[in-house]
């Protein structure tokens, strides 16, 4: 099979500036570029020019409209990287329906946790249909059983079996929503971000424009990022589509198994733009460095973006030195910052600079919330290095504020707020949760902490307790709940948090050990780690806390994860699990 061309022969590159997703697909469909799917061996599975994507979407749209789905209704779709997702997502766009992309199950033994997640997402989105991979049809049916509102569910055969009726398309327009993005909020209480067509168009204009990636003729996107995350769906489907680029895909699973295929794909197809959280670059080094093909040529890689987790300079430096011989330039790195609540992106580092860092004094940072340049940047115990993530996109504003709302000066750490046309109108059906993060004058509280430095943002951590491990957002409540669900501890007897090991985040769970004897203690620690692994597919260290000591609480009696973490780092709780590695502060 021939891969799809990087350049359109006649169609002029039109960078964003469309009214809606249907409008941008209509335009891209006039050219020859499109999307190609690859397997773990790097073999091409299928290729869909944008014209085919549009054609197939029109068929699906007529089937959905013909089946009686009303404008604005929600359609849940398992967002694996496969043509069926494109059919249903874009089909919904032309049928006036709102897609709700959801993840696929992770790891072994994850069925119950996955069903539970599906049920919560159906409930939160009020979905009336659920489509997915054929393999997951049974799960969709099981999850939908208790929701009579879900009128149709199953694999793509169920969707394709609908008769195509001669109805008019009713594409979503500039004043409509585009889709609902689940990636915020815990899986227990998921919040669906309302991605509007207009906010998306504004964000795409920023991303593809001169302050973003400055997309040009000859660019080609390569991605393994999951399409159920904003970085995968908006960053590596919507953004390339908005500039009529070709995209080469592999699934996140295949990337995790064979990370070198990501780089092979870049090299072979002369990819110019690809993104990953830091952990993806790390994985490529750790599992790929020993088998670098002699003909690997990454000199084509113009923008190597980083986003989705804390940007780690050490990881990126290792990646650059490992693949320098293969033509990779460390100047290609573009540290970026964003979140689903602004569609995706809010800041980009300047082009051709690579990773710029600021090394500050740990004590001043922790005790006075000031980012004071470290006296000795090489002293890891006293110095902490952060990556500059660039300037806010044009037309948007960014402020770092103190607890009292005062806008802080450079090098003063506070909460990061943003405003502008990319900001969401709120979470779907959750006015209260929306009010918690959105002010009446349109400022979004990102929940992140950071400071400004000569117009750029430096993100230092999260005000929320959110844990990000291997690029996945994990809410500590979900971990604690998984342990309680197995009746290993009582409610409130477990506190989950993450520690920075210098190489990534390590999850630690502190549990009250209401057992006696070394054997029982070891068994408890093992069971806790096992329960977390089974339910959340996350590895953790377990710290056993003597019941007499108790877990710290806030003044209102709520569990304080921040103080639990501080106690742990201070050495108050001894690691107990036999699998525990020593904690690094």
């Amino acid at each position, binding site marked *: 099979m021939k891969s799809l061309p990087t350049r359109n022969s006649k169609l002029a590159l039109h960078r964003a500036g469309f009214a809606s997703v249907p409008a941008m697909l209509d335009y891209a469909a006039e050219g020859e570029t499109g999307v190609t799917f690859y397997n773990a061996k790097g073999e091409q599975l299928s290729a869909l020019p944008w014209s085919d994507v549009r054609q197939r979407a029109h068929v699906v749209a007529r089937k959905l409209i013909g089946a009686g789905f009303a404008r604005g209704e929600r359609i849940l779709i398992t967002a694996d990287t496969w043509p069926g997702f494109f059919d249903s997502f874009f089909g919904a766009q032309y049928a006036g329906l709102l897609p709700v992309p959801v993840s696929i*199950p992770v790891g*072994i*033994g994850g069925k119950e946790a996955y069903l539970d997640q599906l049920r919560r997402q159906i409930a939160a989105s009020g979905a009336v249909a659920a489509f997915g*991979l054929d393999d*997951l049809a049974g*799960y969709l049916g099981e999850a939908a059983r208790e929701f009579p509102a879900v009128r149709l569910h199953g694999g793509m055969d169920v969707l394709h079996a609908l008769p195509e009726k001669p109805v008019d398309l009713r594409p979503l327009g500039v004043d409509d929503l585009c889709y609902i993005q689940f990636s915020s909020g815990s899986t227990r209480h998921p919040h669906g971000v309302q991605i509007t067509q207009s906010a998306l168009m504004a964000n795409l204009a920023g991303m593809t424009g001169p302050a973003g990636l400055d997309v040009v003729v000859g660019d080609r996107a390569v991605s393994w990022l999951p399409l159920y995350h904003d970085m995968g769906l908006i960053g590596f489907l919507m953004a390339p589509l908005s500039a009529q680029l070709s995209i080469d895909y592999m699934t996140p699973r295949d990337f995790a*198994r064979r990370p070198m295929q990501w780089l092979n794909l870049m090299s072979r197809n002369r990819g110019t733009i690809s993104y990953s959280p830091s952990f993806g670059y790390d994985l490529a080094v750790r599992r790929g460095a020993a088998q670098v093909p002699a003909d690997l040529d990454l000199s084509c890689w113009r923008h190597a973006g980083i986003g989705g987790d804390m940007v780690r300079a050490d990881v990126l430096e290792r990646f650059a030195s490992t693949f320098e011989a293969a033509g990779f330039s460390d100047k290609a790195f573009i540290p970026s910052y964003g979140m689903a609540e602004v569609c995706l992106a809010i800041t980009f580092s300047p082009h051709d600079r690579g990773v710029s860092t600021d090394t500050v004094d740990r004590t001043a940072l922790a005790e006075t919330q000031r980012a004071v340049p470290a006296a000795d940047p090489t002293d890891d115990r006293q110095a902490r290095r952060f990556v500059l993530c660039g300037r806010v996109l044009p037309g948007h504003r960014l402020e770092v504020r103190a607890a009292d709302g005062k806008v802080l000066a450079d090098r003063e750490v506070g909460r990061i707020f943003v405003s502008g046309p990319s900001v969401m109108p709120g979470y779907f059906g959750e006015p209260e949760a929306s009010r918690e993060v959105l002010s009446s004058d349109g400022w979004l509280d990102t929940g992140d902490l950071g400071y400004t430095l000569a117009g750029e943002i430096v993100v230092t951590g999260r005000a929320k307790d959110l844990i990000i491990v291997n690029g996945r957002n994990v809410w500590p409540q979900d971990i604690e709940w998984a342990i309680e669900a197995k009746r290993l501890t009582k409610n409130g007897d477990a506190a989950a948090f993450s520690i920075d090991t210098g190489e990534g985040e390590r999850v630690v769970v502190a549990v009250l050990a209401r057992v006696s004897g070394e054997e029982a203690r070891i068994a408890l620690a093992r069971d806790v780690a096992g329960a977390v692994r089974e339910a959340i*597919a996350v590895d953790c260290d377990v710290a056993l806390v003597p019941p007499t000591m108790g877990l710290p609480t806030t003044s209102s009696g709520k569990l304080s994860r921040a103080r639990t973490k501080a106690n742990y780092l201070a050495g108050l709780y001894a690691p107990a699990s036999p699998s525990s590695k020593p904690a690094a502060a």
Partner: protein
Amino acid sequence: MIVENDGIADTLELRRESTLARGEVMGEICHHLAPFQVGEKPVAGDTVIAKDLTIDSLAIMDMVMELEDRFDVSIPMNVVAEIHTVDQLADTILKLHARR
């Protein structure tokens, strides 16, 4: 004619299945999991992989991938999500192998 074809298919399937013994699959799985056993308790059929051992999720994924390559099978994600024990993993591989 149809009956005859079915007969041939059955014979072929039986022959294929007979080339892969359960012991071989169990041996391979245990070989992967042995480094993660806790204490003196050896890995057995009823061992719950994610819970009874110290193996982490990335290593589990690696093992599944290597088993898939070794026995030339592909375990669908919905099936993976329902596997808990070593026995279940072995039986899944045997079943998929026989169906190739």
